[in-house]
């Protein structure tokens, strides 16, 4: 039997004296979508960060395809990051870089042989995927929160990850954008990708969840299949999962299917379209010349108003 794509064994996280995750254990099989529900402060975000290795667990083990995160070599960790994406609740875009550079950096890091044109193509495709067709030269501060979150999603998708961590991906988005996020989730599922999602949206859970978990006070109260979750009778769980509805797939807009179909081989094509033998970040890493990359990681200063930072 193949190792699950993600497995947590008695994972505990503390912050100071407080326990924010208490002995959480779960498995996520390849191609499954696990949705975690719970009230605010129940530990959903903490679980995602622990499961993705962004927070260091004080106890327990986290395994990605059977390999424990804390024992990964540098190369293995890079591979893990290459195959996973993380969508932050507050977008977490790099404020001192342009939107273009926010999207391009993961590609530059993990596909160092890729040419500028190929990077540009990947960046524009990711932006297109989330429905963002505005100027990519802008800085994140110039965007609304909703737009920033879409760009954050695009950044997580730019390398076509096999496992995507999503922290409230559709929260605070307008209806159209939220629907686009859902379509992207559906497309990822169609392509056999695994999802590890923290969500308060019963509708989204009803549509995409293969597994449902309920968290309270850092403890995983229950974790089971969608059907099991729909049948939970424990009042403590019903209060959260009570609005889950029987699965009924909504009609998918035309653009979503065409995009999902075209997306599959896009990155493979990009890799063959190398037009520069050695890509280096110092080259400024602009796409086709009309996007400026003036401050990659933005070392800034009092006078660095260009970066908009102190």
């Amino acid at each position: 039997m193949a190792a699950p794509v993600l497995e947590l064994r008695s994972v505990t996280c503390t912050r100071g004296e407080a326990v924010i995750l208490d002995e959480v254990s779960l498995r996520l099989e390849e191609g499954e979508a696990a949705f975690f529900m719970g009230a605010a402060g129940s530990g959903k975000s903490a679980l995602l960060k622990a499961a993705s290795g962004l927070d260091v667990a004080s106890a327990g083990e986290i395994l990605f395809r059977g390999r424990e995160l804390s024992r990964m070599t540098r190369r293995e960790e890079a591979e893990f990051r290459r195959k996973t994406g993380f969508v932050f609740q507050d977008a977490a875009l790099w404020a001192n870089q342009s939107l273009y550079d926010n999207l391009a950096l993961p590609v530059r890091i993990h596909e160092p042989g890729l040419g500028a044109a190929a990077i540009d193509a990947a960046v524009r495709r990711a932006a297109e995927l989330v429905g963002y067709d505005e100027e990519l030269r802008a800085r994140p501060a110039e965007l609304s929160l909703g737009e920033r979150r879409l760009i954050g999603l695009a950044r997580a998708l730019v390398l076509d990850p096999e496992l995507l961590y999503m922290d409230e991906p559709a929260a605070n988005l307008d209806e159209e954008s939220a629907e686009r996020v859902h379509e992207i989730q559906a497309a990822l599922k169609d392509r056999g990708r695994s999802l590890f999602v923290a969500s308060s949206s019963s509708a989204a859970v009803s549509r995409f969840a293969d597994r449902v978990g309920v968290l309270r006070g850092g403890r995983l109260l229950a974790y089971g299949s969608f059907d099991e979750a729909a049948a939970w009778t424990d009042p403590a769980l019903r209060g959260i999962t009570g609005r889950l509805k029987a699965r009924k797939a909504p009609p998918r807009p035309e653009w979503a299917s065409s995009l999902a179909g075209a997306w599959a081989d896009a990155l493979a094509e990009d890799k063959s379209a190398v037009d520069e033998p050695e890509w280096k970040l110092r080259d400024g890493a602009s796409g086709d010349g009309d996007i400026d990359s003036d401050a990659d990681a933005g070392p800034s200063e009092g006078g660095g108003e260009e970066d908009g930072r102190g």
Partner: protein
Amino acid sequence: MLERLGRATIRRAEEASYAFGFFAQVMRESILFFRRRQVGFKVLVMQILFTGVEALRISAVLAVAIGAAINLIGSSLLAEFGQSKLMYSLLIIVITRELGPLLTAFIVIARSGTAIATELGGMVVAHEIEAYVAVGVNPISYLAAPRLLGVVASMLTLDVYFNLFGLAGSFAVVQLIKPIAFDEYFRNLLEVLGAGDLLMGLLKSLVFGVIIAVASLYRGFAVERASTEVPVAGIRAVGSSFMLCIVADVLLTAMQYLG
């Protein structure tokens, strides 16, 4: 009370251990900086631009003012004691060996130390650091190493400019007030300027650069969640950098004179 004291001691020891580990990792990543493919030279270039190039003006003004003051003292007050030539030794001691590196460090602390700490603190609060980790970028090698190298390079470069402006620029200023022969001035200056003076100035700049960068980076990364922690990080970075630079200066000076 004993328990509290013990706990505080353990916490301090843990903090010190963490700080040392952080310092070691930053140094390691900085040494490996040019070998890592993922790191950006652009970041380093921008850091030098902000820390070095933009600080040049204030550094130059300070250097010229101090140099001119010593020149005037040398050509008037010291001449009364028949010790005019002592001026050249004073210039070298003040500009090259002692005040030059220290004043440059103060300028860099005030401008870049605070900037680095608050910027990184802000990035932590906005989860930007986590975002770097999530896409596979090591924040130490991508954010810390180029900043450390940039600050160190800027310190060294600014120190050289401080010397240039302090020794040569001040000569030009003094020409307007009390002319001294160019040939005489530079010949006398070179007579007292030793390689040890230049090396000590550069060594101090190097040490101060490392101190400022590491202290600021450490304070910046130490921010946890609240945005109110960010300005505190900036203040602490300045305090730590000042204190450590002064201690290092005393130690290096003692080493030079006693060693």
